[in-house]
């Protein structure tokens, strides 16, 4: 599937080049279209705007958000079903302001709050690419139907008033050209903050906690500020560039979930100069901690090698599932074949150790649960990293229930990760279902309900009052 996307991208680019050479109106040069294609890759449009098994940019991907499921739209140049009739200004407004050609608002699942920094010439290149470099798909994906009151798109106007940022980035002369380029990419196309910055109650990014870590559905996008303890302050430039290109630094970090997608579709295809620019900028993002912290191990250096095999080895499968060794037994039966019976991984490090592994440490247990349930599927230029899932997928190698995942995760945290992390079967179910839900929906409903009751009371009171005035007048 992911290979198909790459091929499709290349094919659509070729088609686009062909088309532009045939066009007489809308004369976009092949160079402009190619630059637009590169920017679209950097912005990772394809990741959201392509449905499972679907055609590139034709929409249809259900995006589970804390307030409901949003379905991505068709942004191919189809006139009836896509954006084929958009002018460049309408395109710019959609991308930078979250406003559709018909004036309705987009939900900020479309990261227009990030893309708002994109320069006019880059918007033009993107427009050229989407008009000429993408194959039109004459199909409409299903409509987004968020629960009331989120389905009232007009409410987004108020949200945008408070939280949208319409400014372009001003160049910071004190910093290098590379840093500025990095900032433009990070805050714009690569929209790192959309995942890595925690959100407030109204689902807005908290700019004072920039890149300090946030829940993204089932996964947790960790702190990537330069904090030496909670962030990636201990990483070198080369570490970060390698990670962005491949999704892996041995015994430090491995990308899964949405980050794996970002690397597969976007970051692994960027030019070295841009990866270095991104790394330069990110490594300069300050820690958001205000008070000094007591020293503690980073999420990259926790845990140890160990096994608890003698609790059940040679005593029959059924015995192993009971008692104190159930977690160790689950590890042996499900994980050890690749990750080693001492959790040491393979000698070449391809299958990572589970100690000194940031998935099992840090402050948030989501990633370990998510990787057990969903596995890893990460394609880069020359590799396809795959860990099978253990949820209830048809290709799950073994199917683990919530209680088993909790036992297994707690065993791994205790022996190979951060022993202070502990999860319950209920926690596992939350991750299985796509992550914690926001209270915003409930509060909005209560709020609107309260508002409605108030209006009703006021109206009723006003009616009584007017009646009594009338009565008095009559008398």
């Amino acid at each position, binding site marked *: 599937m992911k290979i198909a996307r790459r091929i499709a991208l290349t094919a659509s680019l070729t088609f686009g080049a062909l088309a532009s050479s045939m066009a007489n109106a809308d004369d976009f040069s092949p160079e402009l279209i190619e630059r637009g294609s590169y920017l679209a890759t950097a912005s990772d449009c394809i990741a959201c705007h392509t449905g499972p098994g679907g055609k590139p940019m034709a929409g249809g991907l259900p995006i589970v958000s804390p307030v409901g499921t949003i379905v991505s739209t068709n942004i191919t140049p189809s006139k009836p079903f896509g954006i084929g009739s958009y002018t460049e200004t309408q395109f710019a407004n959609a991308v930078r302001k979250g406003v559709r050609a018909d004036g309705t608002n987009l939900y900020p699942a479309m990261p227009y709050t990030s893309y708002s920094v994109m320069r006019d010439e880059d918007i033009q290149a993107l427009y050229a690419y989407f008009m000429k470099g993408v194959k039109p798909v004459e199909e409409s994906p299903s409509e987004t139907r968020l629960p009331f009151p989120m389905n009232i798109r007009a409410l987004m106007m108020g949200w945008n008033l408070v939280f949208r940022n319409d400014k372009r980035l001003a160049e910071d002369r004190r910093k290098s050209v590379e840093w500025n380029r990095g900032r433009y990419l990070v805050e714009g196309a690569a929209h790192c903050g959309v995942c890595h910055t925690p959100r407030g109650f109204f689902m807005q990014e908290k700019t004072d906690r920039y890149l300090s870590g946030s829940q993204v559905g089932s996964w947790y996008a960790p702190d990537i500020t330069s904090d030496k303890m909670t962030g990636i302050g201990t990483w070198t430039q080369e570490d970060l560039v390698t990670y962005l290109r491949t999704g892996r630094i041995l015994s430090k970090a491995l990308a899964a979930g949405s980050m794996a997608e970002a690397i597969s579709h976007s970051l692994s295809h960027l030019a070295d100069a841009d990866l270095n620019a991104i790394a330069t900028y990110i490594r300069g993002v300050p820690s958001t901690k205000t008070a000094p912290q007591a020293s503690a191990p980073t999420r990259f250096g926790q845990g140890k090698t160990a096994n608890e095999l003698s609790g059940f080895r*040679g005593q029959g499968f059924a015995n192993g599932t009971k008692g104190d060794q159930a977690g160790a037994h689950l590890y*042996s039966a499900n994980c050890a*074949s*690749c990750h080693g019976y001492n959790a040491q991984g393979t000698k070449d490090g391809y299958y990572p150790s589970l100690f000194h592994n940031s998935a099992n440490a840090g402050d948030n247990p989501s990633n370990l649960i998510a990787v057990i349930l969903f596995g890893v599927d990460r394609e880069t230029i020359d590799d*396809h990293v*795959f860990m*099978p899932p253990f949820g209830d997928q048809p290709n799950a190698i*073994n*199917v683990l229930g919530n209680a088993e995942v909790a036992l297994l995760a707690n065993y791994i945290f205790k022996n190979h990760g951060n022993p202070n992390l502990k999860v319950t079967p209920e926690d596992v179910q939350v991750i299985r279902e796509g992550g914690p839900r926001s209270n915003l929906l409930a509060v909005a409903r209560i709020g609107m309900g309260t508002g409605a009751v108030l209006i009703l009371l006021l109206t009723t009171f006003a009616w009584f009052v007017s009646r009594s005035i009338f009565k008095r007048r009559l008398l």
Partner: protein
Amino acid sequence: MASETGAEVVIVGTGVIGAVIAEQLLDEGHSVLMIEAGPRVSRAEIVENFRNVPLGAKGDTSASYPPRPWAPHPVADDKPEDQYLQLTGPDSYAQTFVRYAGGSTWHWAGTCWRLTPDDMRLRSLYGVGRDWPFDYDTLEPFYVRTEHKLGICGPSDPAMQWPARRSAPYPMEALPFSPGEQRFTEVVKTLGYNNIPVAQARNSGIPYDGRPSCCANNNCVPVCPIGAKYDAATSLARLERKGANILVDSVVYKVETNARNKIEAIHYYDQHKQAHRVTGKLFVLACNGLENPKLLLMSADDRNPNGVANSSDQVGRNMMDHPQLTLTVTTREPFWSGVGPVVNSGIIETSQGAFRSEYAGAYFRYNNFGRSRFVTFAALKKGLIGKALDEEIRRMTACTADIVAAHEILPDPNNRLTLSDKKDWLGLPKPAIHYDVGDYVRKSSEVYSLPIGKRIAEAMGAIDLKISPKFSQSKHIMGGTIMGEDPGSSVVDVDCRAHDHENLFIPGGGAMPSTACGNSTITMTALAIKAADAIARQMRGV
């Protein structure tokens, strides 16, 4: 007795044959009921079972798959009176099939040698055995579909392919050799032989079909811990998502015919010995080359006194396998088996030639199992301690290797499965098999295969050579429901449809008229896909 409607298509068995046919028919919109004699188990349990088996018994595949009482399969450990197979004859037909959901591909090695055009024309070319009723080019497209369905990796270089006559490349490239195989390849080249990669149903370098890639667990037999090797168990959840109804712990004991001698229903016992009857439009027997003929014989009725589908009297006859001899070689220099999958390469060109008019072809496979479990107790028995013990174990692990010579065999109607008078837990007759590998095979070992094997051992620099004194079987069950054009001398037609009953299909190893030397699963599965095409046409009324 409960009676329930089954489905349009009722498939007995959930091994590779049943799974492949089920998926194709489900994709065409038919309803499918699969009936499995044994249990559904998790991979985790089998993996831990294997790890818990004592080191000295790890070579016994049945040790990881304890059978359920209602679905007995052979257990090496069983006392004679408890044995499931009643074996007679000068050669043993011992088998290790698994009656679990997923069938025997749970523990196969994944080896996928295609037949060659010559392998299918023994009678015409050499005056022995039987010809297949169609040629290689007819079967070839089904091989391609099998290779893509199971995920079979193989060499892209035609010089290394077997045979090179193919209409499509393998979906994945061949796997790397172990040091032992690399050395073996060099050594046998000096004798003029080519040790080539085995095509195998194993994910090579990339994930395939939602399953991870091989990471050299070296445990394919008895179980791949991660599902990189294709086994039918990996497809069961997908079949259920597509709408298959899979009954487990349900032992089919009777195929019921109606007045028009079409198949009307299937009868099975559940684990509480309650009988059930299910009906369908079309029936597929896919419970392996031994259980299929046994079931047909058990189903004898007034219309079919010799057994269902048995007007030819060939059901249960022509039982075949690949008789094998093992050469255990101790070398001076280290070869190191055990890196990579357990069977990864072999010399197969020795299976072809004009000599086949007189004696059997043979194939020499380099057994790439890690040697530790083979050599540890021998080293300890020498009374060694300390450094000397460590060095001896290491030396023997590095410097011993098993080369297995697997022979083709001819169909002999006297190599026959019948119903014994011994009963199993459900009261069903245990199968009796009389087996003699025949002079065709014995002569080969005398004048052909063992002389070659000895020359190979010598070229390897053997300082010791042990050869198995008797043939054992490769556990590739073939022939018991043999295919042919003549209903007088065969059980099924070119699509594995029973000659006697147009809505009964019996695809699998039992249909193969010749064995050649290579493992049978790929050919069986190609026949299954061919049968599925025929079933689909039949269901469409074409």
